[in-house]
């Protein structure tokens, strides 16, 4: 009950703050703040003349509000967005604005509008024990306003500023190049455009809302990582490419020849026998692939920073290890087990990026789900890249089991804080191919401790 009240209060505060930041011009903000201070300090008119400051500023704001509607400007707009953008990388897109009126328009500003990003009560309560909350004091955690703000920013997922337009001629059009930055992975929706202009006193903006839906997919931030050489080279894949994708039968016929004693019964070409009356054997092409697997551990409750770093590293590895002649099998556990094979014409790495754009931590699923999936595929793999977000006994045993199967492993563990170098509890200490990273390290170049 009380938390609902806090959530509502935060929502209301957020609405006011949103209004304050958009509707008031910079000078309007100054005048409003000064009027508020004057109202507080000038409550006793016999004590000071501050109430006169309040009176004047209040009147200015009042007449600004009254006259703001007369400044409203209506434009028609169209937006051209890219399909995919990278998180954290500013991207450009175009806006086409048309002035349908017969008068020139100037001093116009535009704001992009997004669906209401404020968190619902469920999300607000669910995230109370997020690892990010640990850095705040008890009172802040209890009130949760910072959490409300964090979730609002996260839900919106994009940062873009007000843009001031140049003059638009009567019935003329203006092509504007805007810049925005996606701040989270996933689909980011645009809902419309706010076209505004300040009132004649220059304190308050009046807006015309132009519905203009749009969407863009933000894929994880990628960083340069080295190409890790596979020590074991290629590996025989019985069944060839089709089986590599785990569907259908192998059908790559190399040649037909007469039966020789000892040939497998399965190899006999029965249609040939029917035609020629002789036993004919099919020689099939045996394929050898370099087959890598990229495994993302999503099965732990960690901070956003750790998880995003893990996703980012996975995306970076997918790009770095990808090769047209290499099969890359990407595995993770989402609401269900996902396995996706790319390379050799089975699709490019954009598919992995798209999957990574929407991957989320799964706290409810046990780690065994992922472990079994990987172990079942292990015999066919040339090398395995594992991105872990948590270190425990289960993961340690799982890695030992994989290593026992003779699979070259590259393990990347993302941890909130790096343990001190002298720490005895350093996870994976002394294990070759083990990299310990912490959030923020990747963007300075891959320098994981190993």
């Amino acid at each position: 009950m009380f938390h609902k009240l806090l959530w509502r209060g935060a929502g209301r505060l957020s609405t006011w703050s949103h209004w304050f930041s958009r509707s008031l011009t910079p000078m309007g903000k100054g005048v409003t703040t000064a009027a508020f201070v004057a109202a507080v300090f000038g409550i006793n008119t016999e004590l000071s003349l501050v109430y006169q400051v309040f009176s004047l500023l209040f009147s200015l704001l009042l007449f600004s509000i009254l006259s703001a509607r007369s400044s409203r400007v209506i434009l028609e707009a169209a937006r051209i967005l890219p399909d995919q953008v990278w998180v954290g990388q500013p991207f450009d897109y175009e806006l086409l604005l048309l002035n349908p009126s017969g008068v020139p328009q100037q001093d116009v500003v535009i704001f992009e509008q997004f669906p209401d990003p404020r968190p619902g009560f469920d999300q607000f309560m669910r995230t109370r024990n997020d690892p990010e909350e640990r850095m705040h004091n008890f009172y802040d955690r209890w009130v949760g306003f910072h959490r409300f703000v964090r979730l609002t920013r996260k839900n919106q997922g994009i940062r873009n500023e007000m843009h001031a337009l140049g003059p638009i001629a009567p019935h003329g059009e203006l092509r504007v190049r805007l810049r925005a930055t996606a701040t989270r992975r996933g689909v980011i929706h645009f809902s419309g455009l706010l076209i505004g202009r300040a009132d004649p006193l220059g304190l308050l903006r009046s807006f015309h809302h132009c519905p203009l839906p749009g969407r863009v997919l933000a894929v994880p931030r990628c960083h340069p990582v080295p190409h890790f050489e596979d020590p074991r080279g290629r590996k025989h894949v019985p069944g060839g490419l089709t089986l590599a994708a785990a569907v259908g039968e192998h059908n790559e016929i190399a040649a037909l020849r007469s039966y020789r004693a000892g040939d497998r019964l399965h190899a006999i070409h029965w249609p040939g026998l029917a035609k020629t009356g002789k036993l004919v054997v099919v020689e099939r092409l045996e394929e050898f692939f370099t087959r890598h697997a990229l495994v993302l551990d999503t099965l732990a409750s960690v901070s956003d920073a750790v998880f995003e770093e893990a996703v980012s590293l996975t995306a970076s590895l997918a790009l770095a290890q990808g090769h047209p002649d290499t099969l890359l099998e990407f595995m993770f556990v989402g609401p269900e087990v996902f396995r996706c094979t790319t390379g050799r014409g089975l699709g490019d790495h954009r598919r992995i990026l798209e999957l990574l754009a929407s991957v989320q931590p799964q706290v409810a699923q046990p780690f065994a789900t992922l472990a079994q999936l990987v172990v079942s595929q292990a015999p066919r793999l040339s090398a395995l890249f594992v991105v872990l977000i948590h270190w425990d006994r289960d993961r340690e045993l799982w890695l030992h089991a994989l290593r026992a199967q003779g699979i070259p492993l590259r393990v990347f563990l993302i941890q909130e804080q790096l343990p001190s170098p002298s720490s005895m509890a350093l996870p994976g200490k002394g294990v070759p191919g083990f990299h310990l990273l912490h959030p923020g390290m990747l963007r300075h170049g891959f320098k994981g401790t190993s």
Partner: protein
Amino acid sequence: MNAKYRSLWVLGGALLFWGWRAGGGGWVVPVAGWLFVQPFSPWRILWSDVLYQRILGVCGVIAVLLGGWAWFVQQDELFVMALLRLSPLIWMPMVLVMAADSRTLWAPDRFLSDRNRAATGDEVVPERPMALWFDFFSLATLLAAGVVLENRSWFFPVLVGFMAVLLWSWCPRHGRRGFGWFLFAVAACSGYLVQGGLSLLQRSLMETLSDELAEWFYPHSVDVTHRRTDIGEVGRLKMSGRILFRVHYEGPLVLPLLLRESSYNIYYDGGWSQAPAPFVTIPPDAPVGAWMLGTPGTGGADSGGRRVTIHHSVTRDQGILALPFQAYRIEGLEVAMLEKNRFGSVRYRNGPPPTPWTMIHSPGNLDPLQEGTAEKLDLQIPDVERKGIDLTFQEAGLQGITSSEEIIRKWNEFVRRRFTYSLDLTDPAGFDSPLSHFLLSSRRGHCEYFATASVLLLRRAGIPARYVFGYAVSEPDRQSQWYRVRERDAHAWTVVFVNGAWRSVDFTPPDWRRAEAMEAPLWQGVVDGWSTLSFLFSQWSQGASREVRLGWVVVGFLGLMIYVYLRLFRQKGKGHDHSQVMRRDKQVVGMVGSGDADSPFVAIVKHLEQNAAPRIPSVPLSQWILEQQHPDLMPLLQWHYRWRFDPQGLDAGEILYFTQAVDAWLTKQ
């Protein structure tokens, strides 16, 4: 004209206006001059963020000093008004620095250290034109100028003029500027009407609101004609231990000394009022600050004058003076106006009284302030109280006694025998009034019960009586040799008209002071200690010669300057990313970086030098490291070079990584 310089000139004008109103015109002139000459200045400086961070620290120190000073002077909640009045002094250093900055855009995130900036994440604080920030400072200056009450008629027109200039740069230019100016003129007229309306509204509110509400809204308003009591309240009465004033008494003093604020003669429903009694102005006497309240009373045994000195902890622009009975002269009270009425109330107006001030009274003589004889209202008993009064009158055995002195003595004895002092107030359910409940049932109450009941009972006996509100002086302060008077020393008692004169009688059991003192919180001693210290300092500063005081001001100023110097140029505080600071300093005119002295890599160099051959300065670091057979240090050397030579420097994450890598290498060795 360049918008920045226009804004600087407006700010200079606003500062001069503020200086003129706040009384600091002389020394504001150089500051305003600095702002005025900026367009013609040959210097253009690109200040570093570090300098801004340090200047912010200086502003913080000035704010704390001014806040302390304002609290010391004002000693009540209105110290914030004093602080607002002086607020331009707080941010003046910032303005002086910003004025000389060559930037045209500026954002407040320059105040953030790199560490704090990293903590804010990806949020970018947008940069705004420098002119806008100066206009904000102008608005703040005008607010500060508004705190001063003098030159009331000039303020609004000048304010309108400044606002017109401030809005000029920021109003849109879409061809409707004429309409904008029309709107501004209408808004200015409306503002004028609104301010007049607000002033009228307050006056009418003060007349209609209850005392408590008016006092809460307008703490300076004083309504002497009416006083509500806590009679009828239920629960434990909370008393504040805040020291209101201190009293020094010349000669031997019989405790408690009662200081009267006002007396009342009409009781109704838990409140006391005065019959209409206009205030008359007391003509000032010589020398300045002296006032003759009346002729020294006669008829008592002691006709000599005793001096009572009052030192206020809290001073207000208008209020009622607490005076002892038989006070006839005031000295050292330099206020604009002093008034009195026939109920013994003395009111000052238009400005707080200087402190301390002295009054002279002649104990034992007649009171020159409680004028006139008894009137019909001094014998009036409300009907609702009559039953309780009658029953108590009979129980006390006062029926048939004709001597006033005898009635007073007998009632006093009855009260001591049958009543007790208590701050716990019980529910008077089942009785006509809380006072009847007190008289007939509970017989427990505080001074307001005793004084009110006594007044009404003596009136029942035919003795004219009034209710008096004031303070009881009884708590000596051994450190200062003065008496402390706290809020909880507020007291009510009775004056009776006997033998042709008004005399003071207190029927409250004498243990009331001990009972109220027990309400003191545990930390009272600490608060009192601070209060005594500031009081002693105040006494010293008033007693010290001008030269001594000036000397202390100079010492304080020098101390502040040393602090500012250390803060600006010598700071190496804990938790400060000084290394990052240095990266930035290198880009700054006038700021000198400290080379590579702060690079974590220096620790590795020192380690190698201690354990191997020292490096010859002419040998490059990379070559020397290879000679030491440490090729593994080459990546760290690259970081070191970035630290030293990269104009962008390293950010917080890189520094963390670099430092940890160096630590890891050293640990391995």
